[in-house]
């Protein structure tokens, strides 16, 4: 007897992604290796998640020391931890109900954390004020996106709510949109040079909808994932003007804002640019800007902390926002504390500052080296080209596959880059994400490779990729 045979259409529409199949195969292979099955490689390498700790990079000492003391307050009185760690733990415990991290925290966020985040934002944006009341803490950027979309997407809408979405972008957001019954309106980032966002393309994408949906949201990712492009101030201004003109709600995913290392571009937030554009834009364009403790130097993806700052929302909507963010029992305390520590790191003069600086600089240096090395290797391979990367945790090289390879993939009913990744996994034990996972121009193929790992591991990944690629190109020439 199967009661659950007829599942809601909206759930059915969510297909398990290509990446999940690949991940599952990766797990199977890992199991086989554990049971001593012989393979051409000794271990499986995952370089598709962009979190540092998954890539074997150590967490920041200050963060973990404070968290340990919060969870086991006996440590607050021990001299094993530096004094600024102990003081911070005490302050954070004081902000928790009953002085324990085990209590429920306020659903839209602990006040203390909201205030710390608001201070951080204001400092980051050169003094542009940030109101703690407009900061909503969640379990991560994905959750924040879901909440914001819930507010904006008319599930049973006719025509459906349209959300302009970058290609390439995040597969998980597309899945969420599909689950919500929204219409995905793709706009293509221009690969050469450097995956820029061109407003002409935004116009084209909008025109192409031709009344088939009601365009409501413009979703941007900056720094880009998977592209690694960091938008210039001018580009951000153009996007804001476009949103204003077309009356679109701007949703800006800025989770990689810490990780910029290109020589040209530094990160500037959508909020700052908006504020500095002055009226009427600064008072009217509605913006949600997202950040997370999972990415960047923190890399604390397992702790689940993120926030969204809402700008220029109609005050009468605020009650609904509050309701939306209170349908869960609140972001876990672990994530909220991680956010606070991200927002308020050690300052010069404090005992933990030297180590903190050393650790973050080492991570930055590692990323710069990995990206540099990857670009060097990739651009030297036949049939591979890769744009410069200015930020984020990935390289996103393009594969110029031989026609026979493309044909074989089509016959097997697979995307060519997925076929490539599957064979790469089987032959070299290296797991990277296929470009089809992120969306790409028809007829183009890509890979997404995480650089958020040690220099040695990155080198090993490149070695395995090179060996495989040369064989692959040879096989299909």
């Amino acid at each position, binding site marked *: 007897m199967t009661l659950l045979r007829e599942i*809601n259409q909206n*759930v059915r529409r969510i297909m398990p992604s290509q990446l999940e199949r690949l991940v599952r195969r990766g797990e199977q292979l890992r199991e086989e290796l554990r049971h001593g099955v012989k393979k051409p490689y000794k271990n499986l390498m995952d370089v598709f998640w962009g979190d540092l700790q998954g890539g074997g990079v150590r967490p920041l000492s200050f963060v973990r020391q404070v968290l340990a003391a919060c969870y086991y307050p006996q440590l607050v009185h021990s001299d094993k931890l530096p004094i600024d760690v102990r003081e911070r733990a005490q302050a954070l415990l004081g902000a928790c109900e009953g002085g324990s991290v085990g209590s429920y925290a306020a659903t839209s966020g602990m006040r203390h954390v909201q205030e710390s985040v608001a201070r951080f934002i204001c400092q980051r944006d050169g003094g542009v004020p940030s109101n703690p009341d407009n900061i909503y803490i969640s*379990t991560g950027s994905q959750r924040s996106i879901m909440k914001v979309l819930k507010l904006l997407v008319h599930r049973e809408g006719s025509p459906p709510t349209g959300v302009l979405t970058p290609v390439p972008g995040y597969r998980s957001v597309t899945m969420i949109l599909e689950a919500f019954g929204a219409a995905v309106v793709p706009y293509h980032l221009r690969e050469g040079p450097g995956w820029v966002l061109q407003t002409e393309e935004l116009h084209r994408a909008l025109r192409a909808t031709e009344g088939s949906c009601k365009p409501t949201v413009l979703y941007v990712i900056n720094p880009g994932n998977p592209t690694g492009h960091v938008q210039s101030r001018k580009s951000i201004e153009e996007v804001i003007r476009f949103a204003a003109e077309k009356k679109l709600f701007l949703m800006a995913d800025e989770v990689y804002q810490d990780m910029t290392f290109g020589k040209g571009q530094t990160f500037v937030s959508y909020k700052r640019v908006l504020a500095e554009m002055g009226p009427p834009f600064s008072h009217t364009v509605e913006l949600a800007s997202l950040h997370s403790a999972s990415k960047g130097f923190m890399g604390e993806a397992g702790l689940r902390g993120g926030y969204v700052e809402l700008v220029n929302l*109609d005050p009468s909507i605020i009650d609904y926002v509050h309701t939306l963010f209170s349908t869960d029992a609140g972001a876990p305390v672990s994530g909220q504390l991680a956010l606070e520590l991200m927002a308020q790191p050690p300052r010069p003069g404090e005992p933990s500052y030297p180590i903190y600086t050393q650790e973050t600089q080492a991570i930055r240096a590692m990323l710069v080296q990995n990206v540099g090395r990857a670009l060097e290797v990739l651009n030297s391979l036949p049939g591979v080209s890769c744009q410069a990367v200015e930020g984020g945790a990935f390289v996103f090289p393009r594969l110029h596959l031989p026609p026979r390879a493309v044909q074989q993939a089509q016959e097997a009913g697979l995307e060519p880059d997925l076929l490539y990744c599957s064979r790469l996994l089987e032959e070299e034990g290296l797991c990277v994400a296929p470009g089809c996972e992120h969306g790409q121009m028809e007829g183009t193929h890509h890979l997404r490779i995480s650089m958020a790992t040690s220099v040695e591991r990155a080198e090993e990944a490149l070695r395995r990729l090179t060996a495989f690629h040369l064989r692959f190109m040879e096989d299909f020439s």
Partner: protein
Amino acid sequence: MLVSEPSIRMSFVQDVKSRMGEPRVSPQESLQKWATLKVERKPFQKVIDVSSDDSHRAGMKPFSFVRQVLAGCLYPELLYGDSLPQDARKRVQDLLRGCDGGSVGSYSDSAGLLHVQSSVAEFITRRDAGVPSHSQNIFISAGSQQALTVVLKLLARGEGLSQTGVLAPQPWPRTLPMVLDVAGVCLVPYPLHEEQGWALEVDQLHWALQHARGRCHPRAIYISNPGNPTGHVQSRQSIEEVIQFAAEEKLFLLVDEVYQDSVYGKGRDFVSYKRVLFEMGRQYSKTVQMASFHSLSKSVLGECGLRAGYMELVNVDPDVMLFAETLFCCDICAPVPGQLALEVMVRPPEPGEVSYGTYKQEVLSNRNTLAQNAQQAWECLIGLPGVSCQPVMGGVSLYPKLSPPPALMAQAMALQVEVDVLYSHLLLEEEGVCVGAGSEHGQREGSYHLRLCILTRPDTLEEVLSRLTSFHLRLLDQVSQHALG
């Protein structure tokens, strides 16, 4: 903020209103917000909040072993030296081995860390005297509410007459209507029998089903055992009756067993729906479909802030389970510290291990406090005129019935609030005690209740009872004076 295009903004607001309904701010939330404000010029020094099951907020201490293990997992430097006992250090090493990159900061699989799923499966098998549980049927969630929402989404379909209906007990857990609403299913109440200690009676299930016809399409039945807010613990016979009913009517069983650690009534033990199902023979054990839920927040550990729980799916098609997994993928994974605490919850220290003695003692002390508090609070409440309360067997709250004086009823009507909400509001204003109101849990017309969490420090409970008694007697006095005068 300049509203340069008011018509656009207004239509947007109206659109949101029509889609989302009015903003949901429960009276309880307003009360709680009020409770956190500074109290000046009040006869009380501090507001005591016993409206929610947050034992840590109410001053109960966490268990040492759990926190030691978590601290070690967060900051593995603690493994060197003697800050942590030896068995805690070993557990940290075991747990970190199962985390990507050996760190709690890495992403975990959407359905949970594999070794946590295995430990949960082993725990369930032990708990149910050998009835097997498999890790592929275990989904780790960020709390029981999230897991319940996933299953509801799988069950939800249709609109109007064909909309999925879920039978739910009345009184229900406070957040249940919201969860059902968000998932797009209809709540079909089945009243519990107050005079029989809030027992679940199959007649009421049949009655509810009858009533549902013509309104929606019932596809599932939600059970809370031990009951929230009632504290009723079902007998094995009662569970069998419910399972038979579900089988006959082809309903999916949603079994919320989050309070399974909190059973203290004499002569009543917790037995899980899964165990009873399997012991009923193949006719049922191979066919009845079920999801059962447990949670870190409501377990003896009481770690609400860590946000973790699990659900076990029974007799669900593998294809459907794939959809469940997909839904979990669309959502986020449970925070890793929570998952690790869950592992400790299901695999606590064992006899012979260094931390066993302390752990056992802490659990015992916690459970004794609960049982004693329950008894003390119950005796106090039934001693108040106009208050009655069913004997308590389990859960962490008391759910007394109020017979409010007519004058208070009139005042409530004039203010257009439920009388139990008014009572709790006045109690907060005058004595600084925050309790829950029965109207948030659904109740029969004309009956009123309060909800008090009793998993608090004994001195806190004494203070609560003292203030409540004082308030209640004063209220009756005022009202009778008013009537006389």
